[in-house]
């Protein structure tokens, strides 16, 4: 079977534009810049919230999308510089509650029902993509807690974990980590990916994601994750947001560093990569990232240690990433990182306990790792039994949790 025919792909790359007072250019003015670019390129270039959205048209190969990415962004950089502005490609803004993505659209899919089955299957793999793309470790004045605050905060509602849909009971949805999107072009959209700061990385990542989705599209079957599997997917998603490529995932009943999973996935989709005119050795940046367990967030975190004030960080960060290849250079010189410890029941409880203070509404706990109610409730019950929290039920304030030292 082959769910995708013809095999195509693209990206919607959301890039902020910053002026020489370090202000972000507002959406209204971005419309004009996007309109100008759209006159020159036959791609659906547009805007999203406070960003230019570079939709790169329909691509069939790594070389093609790499060429387009360079052409479009070179021209866009020139256009914005005429107004003394610069492109600022980053997954998060160090000061503001803004998250940006590099969505990858994988086409061409004709059967939405099959696409929903694939969406369910992809729940297992999208955290791997999230770890690979993690690039928002500085957001709203804080840095270091997560390599992707964007995933941690569901991109303000714009990338949310799947929940096991049944085509017979499905409605049109939007904003999932990966789901069929057939309102316009016929694609499977992978939204979990943080905005790339490196053009070459984006080209490689988009090609790999597309190839892997194509590969899974040859194996679509009716699938609903079991509660246990679903819990593991959500745990892995959390690990990806916290640790990026240092994460260790729960995988097929064991624990496994995410880079090893990524390594295997790259090999699994070799044939599909070939269809997109690529072989693994063409994906130099991905290979080095796997080898060193480094993602773009690690580059930002290094910078943040030298610029503790988020205003100063924003200024230096924006000047570096406008060169497009600073992360590529960083990869060659940075030291490898060690894998993080896998999550176990104790560390999961600790993650949930960490969000509970006093009078904390129990839904904060729900939002921690996005576990479904039975799992989240069991964790609350466990903490109550352990004597680390107490539960208070009030009519006016709902269920409140109180930490006990």
């Amino acid at each position, binding site marked *: 079977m082959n769910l995708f025919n013809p095999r195509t792909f693209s990206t919607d790359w959301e890039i902020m534009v910053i002026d*020489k007072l370090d202000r972000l250019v507002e959406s209204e003015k971005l419309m004009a810049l996007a309109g100008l670019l759209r006159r020159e390129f036959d791609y659906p270039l547009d805007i999203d919230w406070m960003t230019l959205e570079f939709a790169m048209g329909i691509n069939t190969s790594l070389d093609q999308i790499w060429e387009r990415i360079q052409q479009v962004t070179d021209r866009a950089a020139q256009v914005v510089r005429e107004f003394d502005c610069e492109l600022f490609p980053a997954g998060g803004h160090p000061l503001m509650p803004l998250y940006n993505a590099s969505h990858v659209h994988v086409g061409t899919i004709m059967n939405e029902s099959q696409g929903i089955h694939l969406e369910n299957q992809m729940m297992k793999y999208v955290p791997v993509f999230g770890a690979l793309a993690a690039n928002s470790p500085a957001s709203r004045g804080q840095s270091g807690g997560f390599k992707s605050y964007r995933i941690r905060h569901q991109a303000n509602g714009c990338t949310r974990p799947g929940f096991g849909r049944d085509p017979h009971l499905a409605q049109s949805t939007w904003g999932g980590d990966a789901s069929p999107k057939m309102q316009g072009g016929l694609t499977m959209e992978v939204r979990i990916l943080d905005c790339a700061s490196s053009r070459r990385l984006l080209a490689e990542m988009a090609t790999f994601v597309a190839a892997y989705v194509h590969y899974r599209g040859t194996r679509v079957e009716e699938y609903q994750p079991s509660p246990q599997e679903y819990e593991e997917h959500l745990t892995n998603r959390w690990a990806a947001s916290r640790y990026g490529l240092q994460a260790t995932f729960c995988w097929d009943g064991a624990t496994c560093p995410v880079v090893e999973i990524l390594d295997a996935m790259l090999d699994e989709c070799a044939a599909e990569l070939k269809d997109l005119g690529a072989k693994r050795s063409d994906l130099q940046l991905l290979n080095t990232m796997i080898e060193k367990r480094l993602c773009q967030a690690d580059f930002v975190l290094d910078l943040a240690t030298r610029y503790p004030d988020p205003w100063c960080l924003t200024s230096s960060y924006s000047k570096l990433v406008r060169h497009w290849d600073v992360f590529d250079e960083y990869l060659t010189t940075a030291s490898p990182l060690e894998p993080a410890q896998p999550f176990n029941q104790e560390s999961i409880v600790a993650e949930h306990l960490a969000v509970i*203070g006093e009078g904390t509404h129990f839904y904060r706990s729900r939002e921690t790792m996005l576990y479904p109610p039975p799992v989240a409730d069991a964790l609350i019950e466990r903490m109550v039994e352990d004597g680390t929290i107490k539960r208070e039920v009030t009519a006016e304030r709902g269920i409140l949790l109180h930490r006990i030292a």
Partner: protein
Amino acid sequence: MHALLGKITDIAPQQATASTAAAKVGHQLEVSLKAACVLPDRTKLPEWLQDQTLKVQRSVLDAREVGHLGDSIVLTPDESAHLLYPLEVEPTVVYGELPPTLQLHLRWWKDDKPPEFSVRANGRLQTGQWTKDDTGYSAAVATETFFDLLPKLPVSFEISCDKLKVSCTVLPVNEPSARKLLLPQGEVQHLENSWYAVDVTTRSHAGAIAAWREKGREVNHFEAPANLIQRAVDQSGYSDRYRTGWSWSDKIKDVAMDVAGARHESGATRLALEGTVEEGINLRTSAVCTLYDELPLLLWQRDYSFHKGKNDEKEKDAKPKEPIDDMQPMGLSFRAAARLDRDAAQGSRVLCADGKRLVVVREAEAHQMVRHWYWRMWDGWAIVEHPLRHEYQMYVFDRETPPHLVMWTGIHAMTLEPVWPTIPVRPEESVGYAVALSAGERCGATNAGAWVACRSRLPDGSVQCAAICRLRSAERVTSASTATFALAGTVQQAPLKSLLLPGVGEVWYAEAKFPQGSMDGAFDAKVAGIASRQQDRLNAHPPENNNGGDNESV
């Protein structure tokens, strides 16, 4: 703290020093820039920075971090301080006696030679020349030539140089006072009694409390995070706000106020401020800050009044209007921000009561806004508690129309943001509220009431202690009701006395004096039967000690 954003005019590589080489810094650069604005609000530059070329040093791993000519560059607050506040005097505030000399310091870069300075006090003027030193220019001015006799305090020495002004103010010891201070960061109205020293800024927020120092412990309850670019009173301080729609209006942040008067009158020092918030809808505001002489108690009253709009005459011939057209929805709130101790078990938190229960809220994560719309703080008080550093701030308000509890936990600060529901206001009507503030080093809070106690040293060496208390049920206070103060092993009981505060209602207070008292020894209190929240009580929480009943005896 504010900082400069500039545009780069030159980048000159420097020789690596031993320390930069040891730190493996890739590039040592001297960056020349022209300042463009002041962060965080990108406000216009002070006059003395216009068109000036400034220089900063940068040690960077990658020269691209700095950028190119024409790019922006952000200076840290520390780097910006001497540029934004180039004239300093030491001391700025002194008590009791004139300082023998004023030490002046100036960082000057406009011309080769700085203009002469002048010092004015007691109607006398003295001018002088600067002497160059390692960090700029300095001068010492003797104060004895300004006064023939010992002056009655307070007095101020106003120092000017070009368009820069600062002052040194000599305040009386332990006497209530109100005085304008010219600090390097700008003008503030300074109120003081024997408990607190309070700085009210009139330059923004339609008047706001920028500093609230407890004199006994020399603790500023509104201490701002250091070396962090931040708005005035955003991360620390008290400010008021309003809304006429969904969001809190930003307009008030830019409203400077006129000082309508500062005077001492029987038992209190009052500062009155007036200003216009929105010209178009003719929204005016006033604020009165009253500091009571004998108590650790500050009363803040805010009023907003609508007047007929300036365009009303023009609109006479316009479309027909209905009464609803003249109505303005008006929601009120204040925002008290203080430094956050982030500790999920023992860190900063808010306590209040809804009429039955003690409510405790401490968020463990940053960027959490807690809004409670379904109940109100019927007991008319809230305490912001910082147990780890023993700082407690109590806010007391009207019980007839209490606000909802709203608070926010940020990265560096936690806020208390009580919200009064939006109500309709017609032209020539006013709305407002009053809030009493007390801060100290001990607090007690149960569903029966709350208190804050503090201590300070008096000039005779003794230590005074006082507690401010809001009780749920005043009927239960008897003539035998007391507060107990324990200071370094000595215990005193003091009767509870009632005080009716306009707009706030009844509060209770007690005071005691310890002739042999110490500021170093342990201090504790128990007020109206409510014990202080000691370490063993820090983790007591509502389900155990609050079963919905009024179970605490007074």
